[in-house]
């Protein structure tokens, strides 16, 4: 069969160097679509032989986007490695730090990455589909609030993490930074503003996205829908938690498949190798690999904000819970238990789920800032045991993040394995890209930049951090789209540097 090839190289507004390739058949329909990213090499070899307690500081260098998530997963892996249970005050301090990080991260995604497609429009010129375009469209005040929210929370992250960008506070069983009453008050004030900002953002989503029938149709369309398993961390009440809990997996119908503590991850997650990329595709062992397929017989799972809502019996904070109920009611989902709805499978709704998580993070940060234990001055633990092996996990904004270390009795690393957030979603991303391409690019359709952007939207909704997934760092993002005919000749080319 002859095919022609469309290349989106690399994908704009995502971490690292990504590339989407779309192969057309003789009729001009999509035969297949792939995404590819370069793999970094030698992370385990780099770590082996180093003292394990360096890992919170090493792994937070993996990525410039979510160093806080790696820092926290590494710190929790050290808790397990050294068999030391953090005090309740330490857990709360860590979680409060982590909530401030979530507020900045989810805010950035909505206003700078995912949101511009809706706020400025999916077919708007690429140069306008960014935060400047957002400001132009909805006003300077929103932009100011975005920047203020980021700066306010970066300040808290620096206060609690010991450094502004690459935190250093995590210790086995402890947290190096206790807070004064004055600092607590500052955090509480920031958290209140965060709650207001999150409510404002949800209202903006309501007005701009839900208020536009074209966008609602797009969200509900089959092009952006997949029925897979979902994964996320839940607390003792089976509600969303980013810092700690058990990992729960539910099927496309919402029924629980399995729940397990992070340390058992290898019993539940396997990785599939395919010929066209170095990436390995995680899948659920209990279900098995059936290819890039939807449905209950395929072990493909998704770990995103949407997934976390789908596995949970609601949100632990009141306003986020209201937003959660509205989300499922609006999208036509039925309750399957007293508290939980059948999963929403519309992947573009992930943007909405992310804002509900933003509100939860803000409310949780406020709760923690008002907790009587939060100013406990003793936040270090004594470590007496011999280290051997430890697994730590958190919900990173982009999915369940696992750090697994083994050491010799002196605490020198002998084995390191990470499953980073985006990795969980490789198979769903591949499926979403292909389905969107197949739905949108058909025989006779003129391939425009706007059309290809709609394919990219299927990718972008996962907020994939390719730098993290490949252990790489943000690079330049020129976009090159090459359309080739059946003989391989270039018939159209879109080329642009992101500047």
């Amino acid at each position, binding site marked *: 069969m002859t095919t022609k090839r469309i290349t989106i190289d*690399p*994908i*704009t*507004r*995502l*971490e*690292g160097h990504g590339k989407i390739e779309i192969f057309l058949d003789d009729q001009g329909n999509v035969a297949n679509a792939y995404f590819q990213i*370069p*793999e*970094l*090499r*030698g*992370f385990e*070899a*780099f770590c082996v032989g180093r003292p394990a307690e360096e890992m919170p500081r*090493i792994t937070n*260098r*993996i*990525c*410039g*986007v979510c160093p806080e998530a790696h820092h926290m997963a590494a710190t929790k892996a050290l808790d397990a490695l050294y068999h030391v249970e953090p005090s309740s005050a330490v857990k709360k301090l860590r979680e409060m730090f982590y909530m401030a990080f979530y507020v900045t991260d989810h805010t*950035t995604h909505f206003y*700078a*990455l995912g949101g511009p497609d809706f706020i400025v429009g999916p077919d708007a010129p690429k140069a306008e589909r*960014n*935060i*400047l375009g957002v*400001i132009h469209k909805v006003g*300077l005040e929103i*932009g*100011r609030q975005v*920047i203020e929210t*980021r*700066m306010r929370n*970066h300040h808290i992250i620096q206060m609690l993490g010991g450094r502004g*960008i*690459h935190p250093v506070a995590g210790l086995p069983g402890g947290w190096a930074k206790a807070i004064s009453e004055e600092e607590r008050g500052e955090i509480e004030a920031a958290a209140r503003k965060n709650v207001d900002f999150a409510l404002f953002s949800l209202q903006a989503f309501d007005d701009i996205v839900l208020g536009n029938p074209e966008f609602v149709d797009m969200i509900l369309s089959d092009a952006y829908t997949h029925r897979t398993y979902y994964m996320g961390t839940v607390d003792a009440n089976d509600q969303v938690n980013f810092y700690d809990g058990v990992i729960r997996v539910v099927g496309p119908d919402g029924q629980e498949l399995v729940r397990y503590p992070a340390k058992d991850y290898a019993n539940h997650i396997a990785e599939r190798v395919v010929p066209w990329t170095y990436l390995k595709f995680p899948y659920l062992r209990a279900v098995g690999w059936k290819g890039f397929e939807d449905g209950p017989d395929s072990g493909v799972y998704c770990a995103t904000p949407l997934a976390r809502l789908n596995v949970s019996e609601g949100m632990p904070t009141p306003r986020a819970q209201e937003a959660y109920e509205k989300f499922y009611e609006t999208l036509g989902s039925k309750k399957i238990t007293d508290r939980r709805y059948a999963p929403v499978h519309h992947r573009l709704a992930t943007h909405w789920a992310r804002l509900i998580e933003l509100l939860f993070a803000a409310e949780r940060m406020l709760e923690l800032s008002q907790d009587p234990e939060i100013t406990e001055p003793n936040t270090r633990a004594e470590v007496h045991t011999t280290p051997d092996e430890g697994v730590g996990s958190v919900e990173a904004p982009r999915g369940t993040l696992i750090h697994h270390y083994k050491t010799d009795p002196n605490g020198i690393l002998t084995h390191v394995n990470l499953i980073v957030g985006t990795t969980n979603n490789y198979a769903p991303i591949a499926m979403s890209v292909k389905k969107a391409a197949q739905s949108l690019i058909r025989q006779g359709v003129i391939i425009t930049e706007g059309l290809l952007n709609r394919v990219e939207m299927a990718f972008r909704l996962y907020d994939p*951090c390719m*730098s993290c997934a490949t*252990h*790489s*760092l*943000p*690079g*330049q*993002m*020129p976009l090159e789209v090459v359309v080739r005919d059946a003989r391989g000749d270039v018939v159209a080319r879109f080329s642009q*540097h*992101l*500047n």
Partner: protein
Amino acid sequence: MNATIIIGLGNPILTDDGVGVLVARELARRLAHRPDITVTEASVGGLRLMELMAGYDRAILIDAILDDQPPGTLTRLTLADLNARAAPQHTASAHDVNLPTALAAGRRMGLQLPDDIIIFAISVVNVLDFGDHPTDAVSKAIPAAVQAVLDSVFSPYAASLSLPLNTEN
């Protein structure tokens, strides 16, 4: 006196990618006595990089660049150059927005951002392997890069300064 921030960009555990950070660490040592000059390191781009510069009159960035020049080549770029050629490794994080857009957004929102932004880009070859040390040609470029930044920092009013610019030469 005008406030200057010097930012070494890159990942210090990704072989050549960390060269900007290594240059910044040496500059931090040499400029420790200057309260008007902040030297820092970061592996961020876009909005976060813009936010780091807020409040300063002048910013100097040092970053790795993957281009066609021999490894270790030092290139001085302005923001306008970023638009005309391949951007250095970290000024354009696609996770948020690229630096010129971020700066434009920041200015529109009333942040005080430096008008004077210079980027020193060091050509590199290996940003895919984890490692503490840059490759040889890139390592060898570090002293010259440090000196070039110092020259750039002091050139406008070098006559009024008596600083140990050449302590290692």
